[in-house]
């Protein structure tokens, strides 16, 4: 459609909003209520413009202007809010006339009369849409001589979000956000007219995605409490990077000031997280400044670890390696290590000639679908989805993209100015296609609220579930066991039929599936049977990448479990903490050399001969591959971490100590290797990343994966958590929000175990004693207890010893 904006002619698709036409033409109108990826509502009235269009005669020809012979433009009697106006063929938009300027000025004046203008003490100052627009479109002075509206200025909506009600300009972005994006209607306008304010009766905003409202608030009304009063916007160094919090590869911006991470904001990646991140990713940054942070190398002197220089530390390594055969050296790194770190680890293993190389957690079934998996965009546009697992906790962005699919609106085309400011296809309170979604898990998971069909199958029953579903896929009249399906046969039939018929059906495979090689195989079989694409949810940020470049043992016995089983004499562990297991801890004490590359003084660090300071995910440069197989850049923010380094730095130092120059001794060197050996040029990585070429054959050194611990029969499950369990204690705000790591029990089991909701207990999970807070809920079935997984205690079945629960602190009981 031909549209003319301020004299600039454009050709736009039907359905484009006038505001996007204005921006596409390089013109500008202010706006506060419109927000990318949300419904336009026309509330702030800032984007008014003069709009006209030609009219057609009855015979279909244009009504012509007698003077010019051109189609005559009929101007709308009122100025139009461009965010809620769709372009029409021949439309003319004028944003520069005096009438428009007067209206914009008038609206700014209205907007500001009750705004406190406390910019000097406002965290949003310098990055505030209202401030910018008031400068651009306001007169700079106010004619409002009365008292402004006085309201609460420090209202804690939750532990992590503070609301200043005086600053609110009622754009409704936050209220709409909760309904439209996560679907949790926990915030609303209260009262009406000039008394309207936002508020909640839901304590602490129960939603996994609350922090996004601090990003989209156009003023300083909604603020990230972790960073409140920590700095001004112009003082922050903004580092656009990729989150290492989970496998989504979400774009984030790390804001650092004077060497400390102050806050995380969502970045924009249209194909991955759009502009949303979960609260774990956003607020879980405080650990990087934890008091027990290791910033210099440490070596053991008797019972103590003492700070030394890197060269002294390396000398200890060299000395302790003497007499240790190379094949007895094991190297393991956490699965959120970058590709470059993976290369470094490989190089080190190659140097020793050891096959004992692994990353952890590494699910038995692998995380790469053998014939290619679905992308997040494919998930967001699928017409049928089956989730087996707890996607919300495992990879929260997957939860949001599924909710996109429920709306049935395809991702918008991007303009030069980005995602559409007003996508007219999006509406408030859109009907959701819940019928396309089936969610299955061993207990009630959050996503089930949005699912047309839900299934609760027996714990560790993933293989049986997929076999039963496959039976149905192959023969609709088959009668597999309902208990294995966890739902009525009719529902299962409908789900399978939906997946087989749906356009671009996707089956999301959660951690419990991947932890069991047989279940994973059955799942891929089912996907083939219904023609759906699988989406395996890897446990950590670079699970996909490390598996792809072969940071895996040369033999099943040489895996991480084997390394800890007493078969090695020297171990290099990066960011892992296996010593929480007392049996493993005993074995580690017998090693000739234990090098622990870690950011914190963990239990394992305390047993080490050498502790090397590790950079956190905000402090390293590199590359990760998200669950789709998308290669994404990780960039270091300027953070004071002493002498900490990523694993490439460790390998560099070790190499120097051992008198050799190892590949992977730096990010550059690692990339050289990747270019040569894998054929991937990471220096040419575009801004938004790129898909890793999918290899049909298994990657070089992946031979046999270790099998998951066999189900013990007693109903215990380690489960993924949105907030990373291993660092929760070092994230005070998230700790306060979540109330700590949970042991979740059915009420009857709680009675049997003699515990109450809120009790702080210690309980044995397999061989590890875990300190947890009891949560009693009917969401978990009788006989099943769930505990949070950590990298060293990964997702999967576990024995939770409810017979011997030690209550450390009783919760207050109301009779």
């Amino acid at each position, binding site marked *: 459609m031909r549209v003319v904006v301020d004299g600039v002619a454009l050709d736009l698709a039907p359905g484009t909003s006038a505001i996007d036409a204005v921006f596409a033409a390089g013109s500008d109108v202010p706006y506060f209520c419109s927000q990318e990826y949300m419904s336009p509502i*026309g509330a*702030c009235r800032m984007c008014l413009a003069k709009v006209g269009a030609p009219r057609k005669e009855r015979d279909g020809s244009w009504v012509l202007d007698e003077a010019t012979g051109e189609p005559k433009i009929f101007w709308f009697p009122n100025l139009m809010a461009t965010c809620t106006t769709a372009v029409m063929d021949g439309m003319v938009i004028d944003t520069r006339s005096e009438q428009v300027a007067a209206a914009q000025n008038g609206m700014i004046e209205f907007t500001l*009369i009750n705004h406190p203008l406390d910019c000097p003490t406002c965290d949003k100052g310098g990055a505030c849409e209202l401030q910018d627009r008031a400068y651009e479109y306001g007169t700079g002075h106010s004619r*409002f001589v009365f008292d402004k509206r006085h309201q609460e200025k420090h209202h804690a909506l939750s532990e992590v979000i503070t609301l200043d009600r005086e600053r609110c300009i009622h754009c409704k972005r936050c209220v709409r956000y909760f309904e439209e994006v996560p679907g*949790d209607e926990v915030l609303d306008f209260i*009262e009406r007219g000039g008394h309207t304010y936002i508020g909640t009766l839901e304590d602490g905003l129960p939603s996994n995605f609350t922090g996004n409202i601090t990003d989209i608030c156009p003023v300083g009304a909604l603020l990230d409490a972790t960073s409140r009063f920590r700095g001004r916007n112009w003082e922050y160094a903004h580092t656009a990077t990729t989150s290492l919090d989970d496998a989504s590869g979400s774009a984030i911006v790390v804001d650092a000031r004077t060497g400390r991470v102050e806050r995380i904001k969502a970045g924009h990646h249209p194909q991955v997280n759009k502009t949303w991140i979960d609260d774990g990713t956003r607020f879980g940054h405080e650990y990087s400044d934890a008091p027990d942070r290791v910033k210099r190398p440490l070596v053991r002197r008797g019972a103590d670890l003492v700070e030394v220089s890197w060269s002294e530390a390396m000398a200890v390594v060299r000395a302790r390696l003497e007499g240790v055969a190379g094949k007895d050296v094991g190297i393991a790194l956490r699965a959120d290590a970058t590709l470059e770190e993976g290369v470094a680890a490989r190089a080190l293993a190659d140097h020793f000639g050891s096959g004992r190389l692994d990353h952890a957690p590494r699910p038995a079934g692998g995380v790469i679908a053998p014939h290619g998996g679905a992308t997040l965009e494919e998930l967001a546009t699928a017409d049928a989805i089956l989730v087996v697992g707890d996607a919300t906790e495992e990879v929260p962005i997957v939860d949001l993209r599924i909710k996109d699919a429920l709306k049935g609106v395809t991702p918008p085309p991007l303009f030069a100015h980005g995602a559409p400011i007003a996508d007219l296809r999006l509406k408030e309170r859109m009907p959701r296609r819940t019928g396309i979604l089936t969610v299955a898990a061993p207990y009630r998971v959050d996503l089930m609220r949005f699912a047309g069909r839900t299934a609760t199958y027996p714990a560790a029953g993933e293989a049986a579930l997929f076999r039963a579903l496959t039976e149905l896929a192959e023969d609709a009249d088959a009668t597999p066991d309902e208990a294995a399906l966890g739902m009525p046969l009719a529902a299962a039939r409908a789900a399978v039929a939906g997946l087989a018929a749906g356009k671009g059906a996707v089956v999301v495979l959660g951690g419990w599936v991947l932890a069991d090689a047989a279940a994973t195989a059955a799942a891929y079989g089912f996907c083939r049977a219904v023609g759906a694409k699988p989406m395996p949810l890897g446990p950590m940020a670079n699970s996909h990448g490390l598996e792809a470049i072969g940071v895996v043992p040369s033999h099943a016995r040489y895996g991480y479990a084997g390394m800890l089983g007493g078969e090695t004499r020297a171990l290099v562990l990066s960011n892992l903490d296996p010593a929480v297991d007392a049996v493993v801890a005993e074995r580690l004490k017998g090693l000739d050399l234990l090098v622990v590359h870690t950011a914190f003084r963990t239990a394992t660090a305390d047993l080490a001969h050498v502790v090397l300071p590790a950079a956190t995910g905000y402090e390293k440069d590199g590359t990760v591959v998200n669950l789709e197989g998308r290669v994404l850049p990780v960039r270091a923010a300027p953070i004071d971490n002493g002498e900490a380094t990523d694993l490439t730095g460790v390998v560099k130092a070790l190499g120097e100590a051992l008198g050799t120059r190892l590949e992977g001794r730096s990010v550059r060197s690692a990339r050289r290797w990747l270019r040569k050996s894998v054929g991937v040029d990471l220096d040419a990585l575009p801004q938004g990343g790129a898909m890793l070429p999918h290899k049909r054959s298994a990657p070089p050194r992946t031979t046999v994966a270790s099998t998951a611990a066999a189900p013990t029969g007693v109903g215990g499950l380690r489960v993924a958590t949105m907030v990373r369990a291993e660092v929760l204690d070092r994230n005070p705000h998230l700790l306060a929000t979540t109330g700590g790591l949970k042991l979740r029990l059915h009420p009857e089991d709680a009675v049997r175990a003699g515990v109450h909701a809120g009790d702080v207990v210690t309980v044995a999970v397999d061989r590890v004693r875990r300190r947890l807070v009891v949560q009693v809920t009917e969401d978990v079935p009788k006989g099943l207890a769930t505990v949070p997984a950590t990298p060293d205690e990964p997702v999967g079945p576990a024995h939770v010893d409810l017979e011997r629960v030690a209550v450390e602190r009783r919760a207050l009981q109301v009779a």
Partner: protein
Amino acid sequence: MSELPLLRPFFEDKPELLAEILGRYPEYGRRSALMPLLWEVQRAERHVSEARLEEIAAIVGVTATEAKGVMSFYGTYHEHPVGRYHLQVCRTLSCALAGADELYAHLCERTGLVNGETDAEGRFSIQGVECLGSCGTAPVLQVNDAYFERVTRSRLDALLEAMRRDELPEPSRERGGDTVGAEKAERDRRGCRMTTVADRPKPITSRFDPRFEVTLYKHVGVEGAHTLEAYRAHGGYEAARKALTSMTPTEVVDEVKASGLRGRGGAGFPTGLKWSFMPPVDGRQRFIVCNADESEPGSFKDRYLLEDDPHQVIEGMMIAGYAISATIGVLYVRGEYYHAYERLRAAIDEARAAGVLGVGVLGSGFDFDLILHRGAGAYICGEETALMNSFEGLRANPRLKPPFPAQAGVYGRPTTINNVESFASAVHIVAKGAAWYAGMGTDDSKGTKLYQLSGAAQRPGVYEMPMGATFRELIFDLGGGPSEPAKAFIPGGSSTPMLPWTEANLDLPMDYGSMAKAGTMLGTGGVIVIPESKCMVDAMYNVVRFYAHESCGKCTPCREGVATWLPKMYQKLLAGLGTREDLTLMEEMVRNLRGTAFCPLADACAMPVAASFLHFRHEYEHLVDTGAPKYPTRSRWAE
């Protein structure tokens, strides 16, 4: 020592009531039960506590936050207990002109309470409220759900005395104009005409044309007219029977189109044309909605129709439902019209019992039933899409258009919405034919119309007249002339720009075209006479205060301009602190409010203010120059 009572869920022991309320709405509309459930709790406990709110939220399946957002939107749900006698005095323009402010001050003095306060015994609480739709019988006091009209100070004293003895007298339902059956007949017989017109033009444009017959209000004011029996006795439901059994839906639409009926809710959109906008029948449920949220100050015509002749409205909805193939009608009646609500509820029950509503109504193959829904005090619900949101149990913000109701209305389904009077008119158009209807009125305005007269008039009330009758006929011939010298009149409800009291203006025909030509609007036909003795600035402050109170707060100009800044400017002027610059500022502000807001409410406030500046700037100037108003800001108050 009294024990803290154990709180049991309110609906725990009322499963039948709960089922009945939930059963009113379709399964996909469970949330609609939110407002009626709030009403039930408030009726029993005189407020809705947070615990009750949470209970209701869980019943209808929303978060407590959402329920709170909805509840707090409305003026008549209380968070804290009100007194056993919740005394509400309407203070909007027509009542204020009749002395409501003085009455209210008297009430405060006698009870010793201030606005919003409840006394220690929990007996009385008082609240100044906005227009209750009793402008013709002003001032009005609402005690709980009952209206006491034309309340003088002495009557108020007597009422208070009675309530102190816990004896609430029967509501005094005062009447005026055509609502007084006997007087009306007498007037018609006498033809008490004070003005003259030479020849009677065709078509009929005067009430005194012998061919004119009071139609819509024929039975209003007649004792017992609200029953099905009475309605049927004078031919009720025969028009519907005719439409349903001998006409196709298209024929009904065409008949209404041909009649020239324009929507009586204020905007005057052609009714038949609106009906024809419905998309083809596609199996989706379709709705016909009656907008009985009459709340525009100066308008009170629908109230008496609903109270005294509910079947006429039901029949009109049935005909319209048939015309647009909608089998469910929604009757949204404003919360304050409790008497009307009860009459409607009884009428619907009667109609259902008699097979007039239900499956195969009136022996036809057409199914039709009604959902009666009660509002809770929000003028904005008169805006059609806000009404739909309110009905669905959402905050009553107006919706974005398009989609228009015909595409996506109630519950996102095809919907047509009309005013009460429009439905009543449809009955007679079908019964007597489009030609009969079009035989009344002027070129662009056909038929018979309910005009309302309030303010400084001798005989305020609702008067039915043909379209095109003059203000003079209404104010003088029917209304007995102004009760004191007048300087202006508002032609169609408080949102329409006022006209100065001139001979020429009094001779203007009250139709859509003539009003547009005169720079104003016909609106709802609610004429308010403003006396010479009333300070115009104060009168306009009253109008502005109303719109400020009723702004929904969704869009910036209305929330900040109408609801916040403009009333503060008036307060400043009336406090004697205004300057000439303030007047310029107000005029500019009004310009910024025109056509910039999301819905017409801001315009509804800005237009009359602009008109007052146009015609009475000298009063504003006098006020700012001298610091004192030219005329008293208080009304004369007769015992």
